């Protein structure tokens, strides 16, 4: 019994450590003072000011725009790439997979500066386009890595059977392969979205022309002190994600019950 209590205490302390800053952020988004560390009463004013703050709303817009676009594009690119890679012969498959691993294994900052060098080399103007491209570059490998295991699980002969029965390769792809690997595609898409929305390093090096996302905004603020409006915004984003999660959970539970699992 003692060891069980000890385990509980340990788990509790680690989770406290992980959640302490989040609690602080949420609490201070209701703080009636600009300075951190001083509690000056409860207020909703930061939530109201949030909707008047053009700069932060613009950063939010770019964050969401880039996250949605890069998630969609890298999902399409990555899914086709995974199907192709899966069907490649040994050596070229190995080489392709290893190259695909590079952005995953390389430190963010190396990926970021190498892309910065590329865009400079092609004389591209830094801005929304370069930021979007760089996000697709680092999101796609994760999509591929989440689709490939589903392809391995799939019955190899399904697509062949479809084609034997007269389906064109494209039709087999659309009607047989894609539905089979859908869970992997969805995981990949969500991962790409999460990675993109939370990214700082890659965006920081590959943006320009007054295009900034929330992370860049927060980083530049951190030198002069964070505007509590950001706390309010993150609290809202965080809470809406939790609610979304709860809804999805309820749905799958319901489905499971209906299916009698």
């Amino acid at each position, binding site marked *: 019994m003692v060891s069980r209590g000890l385990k509980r205490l*340990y788990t509790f302390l680690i989770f406290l450590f992980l959640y302490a800053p989040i609690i602080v952020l949420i609490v201070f988004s209701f703080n009636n003072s600009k300075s951190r*560390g001083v509690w000056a009463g409860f207020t909703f004013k930061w939530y109201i000011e949030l909707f008047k703050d053009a700069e932060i709303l613009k950063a939010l817009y770019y964050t969401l725009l880039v996250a949605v676009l890069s998630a969609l594009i890298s999902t399409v690119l990555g899914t086709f790439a995974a199907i192709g890679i899966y069907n490649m012969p040994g050596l070229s498959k190995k080489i392709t997979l290893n190259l695909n691993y590079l952005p995953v294994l390389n430190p963010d900052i190396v990926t970021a*500066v190498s892309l910065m060098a590329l865009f400079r080399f092609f004389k591209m103007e830094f801005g929304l386009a370069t930021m979007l491209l760089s996000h697709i570059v680092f999101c796609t490998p994760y999509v591929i890595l989440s689709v490939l295991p589903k392809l391995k699980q799939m019955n190899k002969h399904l697509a062949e059977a479809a084609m034997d029965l007269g389906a064109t390769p494209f039709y087999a792809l659309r009607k047989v392969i894609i539905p089979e690997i859908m869970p992997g595609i969805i995981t990949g898409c969500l991962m790409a979205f999460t990675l993109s929305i939370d990214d700082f390093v890659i965006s920081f090096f590959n943006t320009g022309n007054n295009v900034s996302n929330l992370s860049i905004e927060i980083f530049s603020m951190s030198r002069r002190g964070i505007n509590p409006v950001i706390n309010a915004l993150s609290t809202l984003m965080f809470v809406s994600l939790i609610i979304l999660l709860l809804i999805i959970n309820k749905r799958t539970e319901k489905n499971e019950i209906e299916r009698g699992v």
Partner: protein
Amino acid sequence: MKMKKVAYPYILWMAIFIVIPLFLILYFAFTTGDSQNFATFQFSLDNFKRFFTPTYLKVLGRSVNLAFISTIICLILGYPLAYIISKAEPRKRNMMVLMLVIPMWMNFLLRTYAWLTLLGRNGFINFVITKIGFKPLELIYNDKAVLLGMVYNFLPFMVLPIYTVLIKIEKSLIEAAEDLGANKIEVFSKVVLPLSMPGIITGITMVFIPAVSTFVISALLGGNKYNLIGNLVEQQFRWTGDWHFGSSMSIILMIFILITMALTSKFDKEKEGGGGGLW
């Protein structure tokens, strides 16, 4: 097998956005000149010569040292947690895994910055300390704060891969060891620990790589005086404009990571293909 053709666009994409950029960095690293004008580049080893002087080697040493310590701390803190989670009943288990991931949904810069509120001179922790009757401590803008930031941010990356491996261990193996007379410690050290090695290795690389190359955590919690190799690269590319020197440091960072991975893969005999151990 015409299906492989659908990967061709991505192969072209990889050539442009993964291979060429790395060669460009390599090219920058071995040349000097005006970073903005490719015509002025000349082959030179000056960037590396400049790096291998005490000032910069000290920064590299500090980065590696901090990353190493934070990896060890993550392992010591994370392994027991992964073990506890893997032993819980399925419902609770999934809940706890989810709780490890949820913090990542809040911007990591902001979460790291929030530690300033907790650790600062008028922060919560010093408030408690002074209430008990001690003098306030200097908790931010030093080594320990940067370490804390690293452990805080990367701990889930250690716990998740270890957990993934631990739940796959067959119960019958543990039962067999017990039947053969092994006590709890022996079961752990001779069965569970060796079998969880692949997870530990993945965890180590997933913590060490971002820790050694970070510039955000040190910029936020270390104050301005605090430099790690990531900060040097950032300065060269964003402020000083010497892309050649910045590239040479990126190459050194990459070499370091290759060494780490070679070392860890030595211990990792049965590396699973496909990767994605985290998810």
